[in-house]
Protein backbone atom coordinates (compact mmCIF):
# COMPACT_ATOMS: atom_id res chain seq x y z
CA UNK A 1 0.00 0.00 0.00
CA UNK A 2 1.06 3.63 0.37
CA UNK A 3 4.09 4.90 2.25
CA UNK A 4 2.15 6.00 5.34
CA UNK A 5 0.55 2.60 5.70
CA UNK A 6 3.82 0.78 5.34
CA UNK A 7 5.56 3.09 7.81
CA UNK A 8 2.75 2.57 10.33
CA UNK A 9 2.95 -1.18 9.90
CA UNK A 10 6.72 -1.26 10.22
CA UNK A 11 6.62 0.92 13.32
CA UNK A 12 3.87 -1.26 14.77
CA UNK A 13 5.91 -4.41 14.36
CA UNK A 14 9.12 -2.96 15.72
CA UNK A 15 7.85 -0.78 18.50
CA UNK A 16 4.52 -2.16 19.66
CA UNK A 17 5.87 -3.75 22.83
CA UNK A 18 8.15 -0.81 23.59
CA UNK A 19 5.27 1.65 23.30
CA UNK A 20 2.93 -0.49 25.42
CA UNK A 21 5.64 -0.80 28.08
CA UNK A 22 6.30 2.97 28.12
CA UNK A 23 2.61 3.81 28.22
CA UNK A 24 1.76 1.30 30.95
CA UNK A 25 4.81 1.85 33.16
CA UNK A 26 3.18 4.61 35.20
CA UNK A 27 -0.39 3.39 35.54
CA UNK A 28 0.38 -0.36 35.15
CA UNK A 29 -2.71 -0.39 32.96
CA UNK A 30 -1.71 -2.52 29.96
CA UNK A 31 -5.23 -2.65 28.52
CA UNK A 32 -5.58 1.15 28.55
CA UNK A 33 -2.11 1.47 26.98
CA UNK A 34 -3.08 -0.94 24.19
CA UNK A 35 -6.33 0.92 23.53
CA UNK A 36 -4.56 4.27 23.40
CA UNK A 37 -1.92 2.85 21.09
CA UNK A 38 -4.53 1.40 18.75
CA UNK A 39 -6.17 4.82 18.59
CA UNK A 40 -2.78 6.46 17.92
CA UNK A 41 -2.16 4.04 15.03
CA UNK A 42 -5.57 4.93 13.59
CA UNK A 43 -4.70 8.62 13.90
CA UNK A 44 -1.35 8.00 12.18
CA UNK A 45 -3.04 6.32 9.23
CA UNK A 46 -5.24 9.39 8.85
CA UNK A 47 -2.54 12.01 9.38
CA UNK A 48 0.56 10.58 7.71
CA UNK A 49 -0.73 10.38 4.11
CA UNK A 50 -1.41 14.13 4.31
CA UNK A 51 1.51 15.36 6.43
CA UNK A 52 4.10 12.80 5.38
CA UNK A 53 5.70 10.19 7.63
CA UNK A 54 7.34 11.93 10.62
CA UNK A 55 11.11 11.63 11.15
CA UNK A 56 10.59 9.62 14.30
CA UNK A 57 7.34 7.71 13.83
CA UNK A 58 7.74 5.95 17.16
CA UNK A 59 8.01 9.25 19.07
CA UNK A 60 5.00 10.58 17.15
CA UNK A 61 2.93 7.53 18.15
CA UNK A 62 4.10 7.75 21.77
CA UNK A 63 3.11 11.40 22.04
CA UNK A 64 -0.25 10.77 20.39
CA UNK A 65 -0.97 7.74 22.57
CA UNK A 66 0.05 9.63 25.74
CA UNK A 67 -2.35 12.41 24.87
CA UNK A 68 -5.13 9.90 24.30
CA UNK A 69 -4.23 8.10 27.51
CA UNK A 70 -4.18 11.34 29.51
CA UNK A 71 -7.48 12.41 27.98
CA UNK A 72 -9.12 9.05 28.75
CA UNK A 73 -7.63 9.10 32.22
CA UNK A 74 -8.97 12.55 33.04
CA UNK A 75 -12.40 11.53 31.81
CA UNK A 76 -12.54 8.15 33.46
CA UNK A 77 -13.18 9.76 36.87
CA UNK A 78 -13.31 6.32 38.49
CA UNK A 79 -10.20 5.69 40.53
CA UNK A 80 -8.39 8.60 38.97
CA UNK A 81 -6.24 10.68 41.23
CA UNK A 82 -4.81 14.10 40.58
CA UNK A 83 -1.31 12.73 41.16
CA UNK A 84 -1.54 10.17 38.37
CA UNK A 85 -2.99 12.71 35.98
CA UNK A 86 -0.13 15.10 36.74
CA UNK A 87 2.38 12.31 36.25
CA UNK A 88 0.86 11.47 32.88
CA UNK A 89 1.02 15.13 31.84
CA UNK A 90 4.65 15.19 32.91
CA UNK A 91 5.38 12.08 30.82
CA UNK A 92 3.63 13.71 27.89
CA UNK A 93 5.87 16.75 28.13
CA UNK A 94 9.06 14.74 28.49
CA UNK A 95 10.93 13.87 25.30
CA UNK A 96 11.24 10.13 24.91
CA UNK A 97 14.92 9.25 24.84
CA UNK A 98 15.16 5.68 23.62
CA UNK A 99 18.94 5.46 23.79
CA UNK A 100 19.34 6.61 27.39
CA UNK A 101 17.14 4.02 29.07
CA UNK A 102 17.13 0.24 28.84
CA UNK A 103 14.51 -1.23 26.55
CA UNK A 104 11.20 -1.15 28.50
CA UNK A 105 10.07 -4.32 26.73
CA UNK A 106 12.27 -6.25 29.12
CA UNK A 107 10.28 -4.89 32.07
CA UNK A 108 7.08 -5.80 30.26
CA UNK A 109 8.26 -9.38 29.75
CA UNK A 110 9.10 -9.70 33.44
CA UNK A 111 5.65 -8.34 34.31
CA UNK A 112 3.96 -10.90 32.02
CA UNK A 113 5.93 -13.75 33.60
CA UNK A 114 5.52 -12.53 37.18
CA UNK A 115 4.96 -15.48 39.53
CA UNK A 116 1.71 -13.85 40.73
CA UNK A 117 0.28 -14.28 37.18
CA UNK A 118 -1.25 -17.66 36.34
CA UNK A 119 1.51 -19.64 34.58
CA UNK A 120 -0.84 -20.81 31.79
CA UNK A 121 -1.59 -17.25 30.65
CA UNK A 122 2.00 -15.92 30.76
CA UNK A 123 2.95 -16.94 27.21
CA UNK A 124 -0.30 -15.64 25.61
CA UNK A 125 0.03 -12.41 27.60
CA UNK A 126 3.59 -11.90 26.38
CA UNK A 127 2.64 -12.58 22.75
CA UNK A 128 -0.16 -10.06 22.96
CA UNK A 129 1.48 -7.22 24.88
CA UNK A 130 5.02 -7.42 23.47
CA UNK A 131 4.19 -8.36 19.88
CA UNK A 132 0.66 -7.06 19.53
CA UNK A 133 -0.91 -10.36 18.43
CA UNK A 134 -4.69 -10.19 18.66
CA UNK A 135 -6.60 -12.38 21.11
CA UNK A 136 -8.21 -14.45 18.34
CA UNK A 137 -4.85 -15.49 16.93
CA UNK A 138 -3.36 -16.19 20.36
CA UNK A 139 -6.49 -18.22 21.19
CA UNK A 140 -6.10 -20.35 18.06
CA UNK A 141 -2.49 -21.03 18.98
CA UNK A 142 -3.35 -22.20 22.48
CA UNK A 143 -6.45 -24.16 21.41
CA UNK A 144 -8.92 -22.03 23.33
CA UNK A 145 -12.13 -20.37 22.13
CA UNK A 146 -11.34 -16.69 21.39
CA UNK A 147 -13.85 -15.48 24.00
CA UNK A 148 -12.25 -17.59 26.73
CA UNK A 149 -8.75 -16.47 25.81
CA UNK A 150 -9.90 -12.85 25.62
CA UNK A 151 -11.41 -13.12 29.07
CA UNK A 152 -8.25 -14.63 30.58
CA UNK A 153 -6.09 -11.94 29.00
CA UNK A 154 -8.39 -9.21 30.32
CA UNK A 155 -8.27 -10.76 33.79
CA UNK A 156 -4.46 -11.01 33.73
CA UNK A 157 -4.15 -7.36 32.68
CA UNK A 158 -6.56 -6.31 35.42
CA UNK A 159 -4.41 -8.19 37.91
CA UNK A 160 -1.25 -6.41 36.70
CA UNK A 161 -3.00 -3.06 37.13
CA UNK A 162 -4.82 -3.66 40.41
CA UNK A 163 -2.30 -5.87 42.22
CA UNK A 164 0.43 -3.30 41.64
CA UNK A 165 2.96 -5.45 39.78
CA UNK A 166 5.92 -3.14 39.24
CA UNK A 167 7.23 -2.36 35.76
CA UNK A 168 10.77 -2.81 37.01
CA UNK A 169 13.50 -5.39 36.66
CA UNK A 170 13.60 -7.94 39.49
CA UNK A 171 16.15 -7.58 42.29
CA UNK A 172 19.47 -9.22 41.31
CA UNK A 173 18.78 -11.91 43.93
CA UNK A 174 15.48 -12.83 42.24
CA UNK A 175 16.66 -12.39 38.66
CA UNK A 176 17.68 -16.00 37.85
CA UNK A 177 14.35 -17.46 38.99
CA UNK A 178 12.34 -14.69 37.36
CA UNK A 179 14.29 -15.03 34.10
CA UNK A 180 13.55 -18.77 34.11
CA UNK A 181 9.84 -17.91 34.09
CA UNK A 182 10.29 -15.48 31.18
CA UNK A 183 12.24 -18.06 29.18
CA UNK A 184 9.69 -20.78 29.99
CA UNK A 185 6.89 -18.55 28.67
CA UNK A 186 8.79 -17.89 25.43
CA UNK A 187 9.47 -21.62 25.09
CA UNK A 188 5.79 -22.36 25.73
CA UNK A 189 4.91 -20.07 22.82
CA UNK A 190 7.41 -21.93 20.65
CA UNK A 191 6.38 -25.37 21.91
CA UNK A 192 2.78 -24.65 21.02
CA UNK A 193 3.78 -23.90 17.48
CA UNK A 194 6.09 -26.90 17.31
CA UNK A 195 3.65 -29.52 18.57
CA UNK A 196 1.08 -28.66 15.99
CA UNK A 197 3.06 -27.16 13.16
CA UNK A 198 1.90 -29.95 10.88
CA UNK A 199 -1.41 -30.97 12.31
CA UNK A 200 -3.57 -27.91 12.73
CA UNK A 201 -4.07 -24.76 10.70
CA UNK A 202 -0.84 -23.56 9.06
CA UNK A 203 -1.15 -20.14 10.73
CA UNK A 204 -0.16 -21.78 13.97
CA UNK A 205 3.35 -22.35 12.65
CA UNK A 206 3.86 -18.58 12.60
CA UNK A 207 4.17 -18.53 16.37
CA UNK A 208 7.54 -20.28 16.12
CA UNK A 209 8.84 -17.22 14.35
CA UNK A 210 7.36 -14.93 17.02
CA UNK A 211 8.90 -16.98 19.82
CA UNK A 212 12.31 -16.87 18.15
CA UNK A 213 11.90 -13.12 17.77
CA UNK A 214 11.24 -12.82 21.52
CA UNK A 215 14.28 -14.97 22.32
CA UNK A 216 16.47 -12.82 20.05
CA UNK A 217 15.17 -9.75 21.87
CA UNK A 218 16.02 -11.32 25.24
CA UNK A 219 19.57 -12.19 24.16
CA UNK A 220 20.03 -8.63 22.95
CA UNK A 221 18.63 -7.05 26.12
CA UNK A 222 20.30 -9.46 28.55
CA UNK A 223 23.71 -10.19 27.03
CA UNK A 224 24.91 -11.68 30.33
CA UNK A 225 22.20 -14.34 30.48
CA UNK A 226 23.58 -17.55 28.96
CA UNK A 227 20.25 -19.35 29.37
CA UNK A 228 18.53 -16.83 27.07
CA UNK A 229 21.14 -17.72 24.43
CA UNK A 230 20.61 -21.40 25.20
CA UNK A 231 16.89 -21.02 24.54
CA UNK A 232 17.51 -19.20 21.26
CA UNK A 233 19.98 -21.91 20.14
CA UNK A 234 17.52 -24.64 21.10
CA UNK A 235 14.66 -23.10 19.11
CA UNK A 236 16.90 -22.45 16.08
CA UNK A 237 18.01 -26.11 16.08
CA UNK A 238 14.36 -27.25 16.22
CA UNK A 239 13.43 -24.80 13.46
CA UNK A 240 16.25 -26.12 11.27
CA UNK A 241 14.61 -29.58 11.28
CA UNK A 242 11.15 -28.40 10.26
CA UNK A 243 11.56 -29.31 6.54
CA UNK A 244 12.73 -32.83 7.44
CA UNK A 245 10.02 -33.77 9.94
CA UNK A 246 7.58 -34.98 7.29
CA UNK A 247 8.25 -36.95 4.11
CA UNK A 248 6.70 -36.23 0.72
CA UNK A 249 3.50 -38.06 1.69
CA UNK A 250 3.18 -36.10 4.95
CA UNK A 251 4.25 -39.08 7.08
CA UNK A 252 6.13 -38.39 10.32
CA UNK A 253 9.91 -38.89 10.16
CA UNK A 254 11.64 -39.38 13.53
CA UNK A 255 14.79 -37.35 14.12
CA UNK A 256 17.11 -40.35 13.78
CA UNK A 257 15.81 -41.11 10.26
CA UNK A 258 15.65 -37.54 8.99
CA UNK A 259 17.72 -36.64 5.96
CA UNK A 260 20.26 -34.07 7.23
CA UNK A 261 20.43 -32.54 3.76
CA UNK A 262 16.93 -31.19 4.38
CA UNK A 263 17.92 -29.35 7.57
CA UNK A 264 18.12 -25.56 7.26
CA UNK A 265 21.85 -24.90 7.47
CA UNK A 266 21.82 -21.17 8.33
CA UNK A 267 19.68 -21.89 11.40
CA UNK A 268 22.10 -24.61 12.54
CA UNK A 269 25.11 -22.35 12.06
CA UNK A 270 23.46 -19.53 14.00
CA UNK A 271 22.41 -21.93 16.76
CA UNK A 272 25.98 -23.22 17.09
CA UNK A 273 27.41 -19.69 17.24
CA UNK A 274 24.88 -18.57 19.88
CA UNK A 275 25.46 -21.70 21.98
CA UNK A 276 29.25 -21.28 21.85
CA UNK A 277 28.81 -17.73 23.08
CA UNK A 278 26.54 -18.92 25.90
CA UNK A 279 29.06 -21.57 26.97
CA UNK A 280 31.72 -18.90 27.53
CA UNK A 281 29.88 -17.77 30.67
CA UNK A 282 30.46 -21.25 32.12
CA UNK A 283 27.00 -21.26 33.74
CA UNK A 284 25.18 -24.25 32.26
CA UNK A 285 21.43 -24.50 32.52
CA UNK A 286 18.47 -26.42 31.21
CA UNK A 287 18.16 -24.64 27.87
CA UNK A 288 21.89 -24.68 27.10
CA UNK A 289 22.03 -28.42 27.74
CA UNK A 290 18.96 -29.08 25.59
CA UNK A 291 20.51 -26.99 22.83
CA UNK A 292 23.76 -28.96 23.22
CA UNK A 293 21.82 -32.21 22.77
CA UNK A 294 20.35 -30.85 19.55
CA UNK A 295 23.80 -29.71 18.53
CA UNK A 296 25.10 -33.30 18.83
CA UNK A 297 22.19 -34.49 16.67
CA UNK A 298 23.01 -31.77 14.13
CA UNK A 299 26.58 -33.06 13.81
CA UNK A 300 25.18 -36.11 12.00
CA UNK A 301 24.96 -33.84 8.96
CA UNK A 302 28.77 -33.81 8.92
CA UNK A 303 29.84 -37.09 10.53
CA UNK A 304 27.02 -39.29 9.21
CA UNK A 305 26.57 -40.87 12.66
CA UNK A 306 24.92 -39.87 15.95
CA UNK A 307 27.18 -39.71 19.01
CA UNK A 308 24.78 -41.42 21.42
CA UNK A 309 27.23 -41.63 24.37
CA UNK A 310 27.60 -37.83 24.24
CA UNK A 311 23.82 -37.40 24.13
CA UNK A 312 23.36 -39.83 27.03
CA UNK A 313 25.86 -37.89 29.14
CA UNK A 314 24.08 -34.61 28.37
CA UNK A 315 20.69 -36.11 29.30
CA UNK A 316 22.12 -37.37 32.59
CA UNK A 317 23.23 -33.81 33.34
CA UNK A 318 19.85 -32.42 32.28
CA UNK A 319 17.95 -34.97 34.39
CA UNK A 320 19.88 -33.82 37.47
CA UNK A 321 19.07 -30.17 36.73
CA UNK A 322 15.50 -30.52 35.51
CA UNK A 323 14.08 -34.00 36.28
CA UNK A 324 10.80 -33.63 34.39
CA UNK A 325 9.08 -36.73 32.96
CA UNK A 326 9.88 -35.59 29.42
CA UNK A 327 13.59 -35.31 30.21
CA UNK A 328 13.70 -38.67 31.98
CA UNK A 329 11.95 -40.45 29.09
CA UNK A 330 14.38 -38.83 26.63
CA UNK A 331 17.28 -39.91 28.85
CA UNK A 332 16.00 -43.50 28.73
CA UNK A 333 15.67 -43.34 24.93
CA UNK A 334 19.21 -42.03 24.52
CA UNK A 335 20.58 -44.68 26.89
CA UNK A 336 18.87 -47.41 24.88
CA UNK A 337 20.08 -45.97 21.56
CA UNK A 338 23.61 -45.78 22.96
CA UNK A 339 23.59 -49.57 23.18
CA UNK A 340 22.36 -50.12 26.72
CA UNK A 341 18.71 -51.05 26.26
CA UNK A 342 18.49 -52.80 29.64
CA UNK A 343 19.59 -49.63 31.45
CA UNK A 344 17.14 -47.63 29.34
CA UNK A 345 14.30 -49.93 30.41
CA UNK A 346 15.33 -49.59 34.06
CA UNK A 347 15.10 -45.79 33.73
CA UNK A 348 11.61 -46.17 32.25
CA UNK A 349 10.50 -48.60 34.96
CA UNK A 350 11.61 -46.14 37.63
CA UNK A 351 9.03 -43.56 36.50
CA UNK A 352 6.32 -46.03 35.35
CA UNK A 353 3.62 -45.11 37.91
CA UNK A 354 3.55 -41.48 36.73
CA UNK A 355 3.55 -42.36 33.03
CA UNK A 356 0.62 -44.67 32.33
CA UNK A 357 -1.10 -42.05 30.17
CA UNK A 358 2.09 -40.39 28.89
CA UNK A 359 2.52 -41.05 25.16
CA UNK A 360 6.31 -40.49 24.91
CA UNK A 361 6.87 -43.04 27.71
CA UNK A 362 4.96 -45.74 25.79
CA UNK A 363 6.69 -44.90 22.50
CA UNK A 364 10.09 -45.05 24.17
CA UNK A 365 9.17 -48.30 25.95
CA UNK A 366 8.12 -49.83 22.61
CA UNK A 367 11.45 -49.02 20.96
CA UNK A 368 13.40 -50.22 23.99
CA UNK A 369 11.48 -53.52 24.11
CA UNK A 370 12.19 -54.06 20.43
CA UNK A 371 15.92 -53.44 21.00
CA UNK A 372 15.74 -56.07 23.78
CA UNK A 373 14.07 -58.54 21.42
CA UNK A 374 10.85 -58.65 23.49
CA UNK A 375 8.52 -58.32 20.53
CA UNK A 376 5.22 -59.04 22.35
CA UNK A 377 5.92 -56.30 24.88
CA UNK A 378 7.02 -53.99 22.06
CA UNK A 379 3.78 -54.59 20.10
CA UNK A 380 1.71 -53.85 23.17
CA UNK A 381 3.60 -50.63 23.89
CA UNK A 382 3.42 -49.42 20.27
CA UNK A 383 -0.32 -49.93 20.33
CA UNK A 384 -0.73 -47.96 23.57
CA UNK A 385 1.55 -45.17 22.33
CA UNK A 386 -0.50 -44.89 19.13
CA UNK A 387 -3.74 -44.70 21.12
CA UNK A 388 -2.34 -41.82 23.17
CA UNK A 389 -1.10 -39.80 20.15
CA UNK A 390 -3.09 -36.69 19.26
CA UNK A 391 -1.14 -36.29 15.98
CA UNK A 392 -2.56 -38.58 13.22
CA UNK A 393 0.80 -38.71 11.39
CA UNK A 394 2.59 -39.92 14.53
CA UNK A 395 -0.24 -42.41 15.19
CA UNK A 396 0.18 -43.82 11.68
CA UNK A 397 3.94 -44.01 12.16
CA UNK A 398 3.56 -45.95 15.42
CA UNK A 399 0.93 -48.34 14.05
CA UNK A 400 3.22 -49.05 11.09
CA UNK A 401 5.74 -50.44 13.60
CA UNK A 402 3.24 -53.16 14.52
CA UNK A 403 3.65 -54.97 11.20
CA UNK A 404 6.00 -57.94 11.62
Amino acid at each position, binding site marked *: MDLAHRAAERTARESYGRLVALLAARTRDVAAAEDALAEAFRAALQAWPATGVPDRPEAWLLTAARRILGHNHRHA*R*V*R*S*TAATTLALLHDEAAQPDAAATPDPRLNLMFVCA*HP*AIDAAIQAPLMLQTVLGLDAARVAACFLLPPAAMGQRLVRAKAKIR*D*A*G*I*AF*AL*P*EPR*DLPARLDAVLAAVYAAYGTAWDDAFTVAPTRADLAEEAIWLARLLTALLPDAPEAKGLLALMLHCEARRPARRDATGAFVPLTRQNPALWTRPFILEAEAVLTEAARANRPGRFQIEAAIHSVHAQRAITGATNWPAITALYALLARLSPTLGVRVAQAAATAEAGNAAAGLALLDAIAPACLAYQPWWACRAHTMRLLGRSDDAQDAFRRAALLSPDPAIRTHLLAQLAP
Partner: protein
Amino acid sequence: MQYMLVFNETKSDFAARDDAEKAPRYWGAWTAYIGAMAQAGIVIGGNGLQPPHTGTTLRIRDGARHLTDGAAVQDGPYADSKEQLAGYMIIDVPDLDAALEWAARSPAAATGSAEIRPVLPPMPTP
Protein backbone atom coordinates in the same frame (compact mmCIF):
# COMPACT_ATOMS: atom_id res chain seq x y z
CA MET B 1 -0.05 1.18 47.33
CA GLN B 2 -1.93 -0.23 50.25
CA TYR B 3 -2.22 -3.98 50.64
CA MET B 4 -3.98 -6.10 53.19
CA LEU B 5 -1.98 -9.12 54.26
CA VAL B 6 -4.51 -11.73 55.32
CA PHE B 7 -3.00 -14.36 57.61
CA ASN B 8 -4.51 -17.82 57.77
CA GLU B 9 -3.37 -20.27 60.42
CA THR B 10 -3.86 -23.98 61.05
CA LYS B 11 -5.62 -25.47 64.04
CA SER B 12 -2.28 -26.25 65.68
CA ASP B 13 -1.16 -22.62 65.22
CA PHE B 14 -4.28 -21.48 67.09
CA ALA B 15 -3.65 -24.11 69.76
CA ALA B 16 -0.09 -22.83 70.22
CA ARG B 17 -1.42 -19.47 71.42
CA ASP B 18 -2.53 -20.98 74.75
CA ASP B 19 -0.05 -23.83 75.02
CA ALA B 20 2.36 -23.19 77.91
CA GLU B 21 5.23 -24.73 76.00
CA LYS B 22 4.56 -23.31 72.52
CA ALA B 23 3.06 -19.93 73.34
CA PRO B 24 6.32 -18.03 73.94
CA ARG B 25 7.63 -19.02 70.55
CA TYR B 26 4.32 -18.33 68.80
CA TRP B 27 3.88 -14.84 70.27
CA GLY B 28 7.61 -14.09 70.00
CA ALA B 29 7.55 -14.69 66.25
CA TRP B 30 4.53 -12.44 65.72
CA THR B 31 5.88 -9.70 67.97
CA ALA B 32 9.20 -9.66 66.11
CA TYR B 33 7.43 -9.63 62.75
CA ILE B 34 5.07 -6.78 63.57
CA GLY B 35 7.91 -4.89 65.26
CA ALA B 36 9.96 -5.10 62.06
CA MET B 37 7.00 -3.80 60.03
CA ALA B 38 6.49 -0.89 62.42
CA GLN B 39 10.17 -0.04 62.27
CA ALA B 40 10.00 0.03 58.46
CA GLY B 41 7.19 2.60 58.77
CA ILE B 42 4.80 0.75 56.48
CA VAL B 43 2.00 -0.14 58.89
CA ILE B 44 -1.39 1.44 58.32
CA GLY B 45 -3.15 -0.85 60.77
CA GLY B 46 -3.86 -4.42 61.68
CA ASN B 47 -4.94 -6.91 64.31
CA GLY B 48 -4.76 -10.47 65.39
CA LEU B 49 -8.14 -12.14 65.73
CA GLN B 50 -9.64 -14.43 68.36
CA PRO B 51 -9.82 -18.04 67.16
CA PRO B 52 -12.54 -19.14 64.70
CA HIS B 53 -14.79 -20.74 67.33
CA THR B 54 -15.38 -17.30 68.85
CA GLY B 55 -16.79 -16.04 65.57
CA THR B 56 -20.41 -15.81 64.50
CA THR B 57 -21.54 -15.67 60.88
CA LEU B 58 -24.72 -13.81 59.99
CA ARG B 59 -26.83 -14.20 56.87
CA ILE B 60 -30.13 -12.50 56.15
CA ARG B 61 -32.37 -14.58 53.91
CA ASP B 62 -35.97 -13.60 53.20
CA GLY B 63 -35.71 -11.01 55.92
CA ALA B 64 -34.77 -13.53 58.62
CA ARG B 65 -31.46 -13.66 60.46
CA HIS B 66 -29.51 -16.92 60.32
CA LEU B 67 -26.54 -17.22 62.65
CA THR B 68 -23.80 -19.83 62.47
CA ASP B 69 -21.45 -20.49 65.34
CA GLY B 70 -17.79 -20.28 64.36
CA ALA B 71 -17.10 -23.66 65.96
CA ALA B 72 -19.55 -25.36 63.58
CA VAL B 73 -17.49 -24.24 60.61
CA GLN B 74 -14.38 -25.83 62.04
CA ASP B 75 -15.79 -29.29 62.63
CA GLY B 76 -15.37 -30.53 59.08
CA PRO B 77 -13.52 -33.69 58.08
CA TYR B 78 -10.31 -31.75 57.41
CA ALA B 79 -10.50 -29.54 60.47
CA ASP B 80 -6.90 -30.21 61.42
CA SER B 81 -5.37 -29.07 58.16
CA LYS B 82 -7.91 -26.36 57.35
CA GLU B 83 -6.56 -22.85 57.54
CA GLN B 84 -8.63 -20.18 59.21
CA LEU B 85 -8.44 -16.42 59.31
CA ALA B 86 -6.12 -15.46 62.18
CA GLY B 87 -5.34 -11.81 61.62
CA TYR B 88 -4.52 -9.10 59.13
CA MET B 89 -2.22 -6.15 58.56
CA ILE B 90 -2.68 -3.24 56.17
CA ILE B 91 0.62 -1.96 54.85
CA ASP B 92 1.70 0.76 52.45
CA VAL B 93 4.50 -0.33 50.10
CA PRO B 94 5.46 0.59 46.50
CA ASP B 95 4.39 -2.59 44.69
CA LEU B 96 3.35 -6.24 44.82
CA ASP B 97 6.91 -7.53 45.11
CA ALA B 98 7.47 -5.46 48.25
CA ALA B 99 4.18 -6.72 49.70
CA LEU B 100 5.14 -10.32 48.86
CA GLU B 101 8.45 -9.79 50.61
CA TRP B 102 6.68 -8.78 53.83
CA ALA B 103 4.09 -11.55 53.51
CA ALA B 104 6.88 -14.09 53.13
CA ARG B 105 8.36 -13.08 56.48
CA SER B 106 5.12 -13.63 58.39
CA PRO B 107 4.97 -16.61 60.76
CA ALA B 108 1.70 -17.65 59.08
CA ALA B 109 3.36 -18.13 55.66
CA ALA B 110 5.46 -21.01 57.00
CA THR B 111 2.61 -23.00 58.58
CA GLY B 112 -0.61 -21.66 57.07
CA SER B 113 -0.77 -19.03 54.35
CA ALA B 114 -0.77 -15.31 53.71
CA GLU B 115 -2.96 -13.75 51.05
CA ILE B 116 -1.98 -10.39 49.59
CA ARG B 117 -4.89 -8.19 48.50
CA PRO B 118 -4.60 -4.66 47.16
CA VAL B 119 -6.84 -2.28 49.08
CA LEU B 120 -9.49 -0.70 46.87
CA PRO B 121 -8.79 3.02 46.34
CA PRO B 122 -11.32 5.42 47.88
CA MET B 123 -14.63 5.66 46.05
CA PRO B 124 -14.73 8.62 43.68
CA THR B 125 -16.63 11.61 44.97
CA PRO B 126 -19.74 12.21 42.88
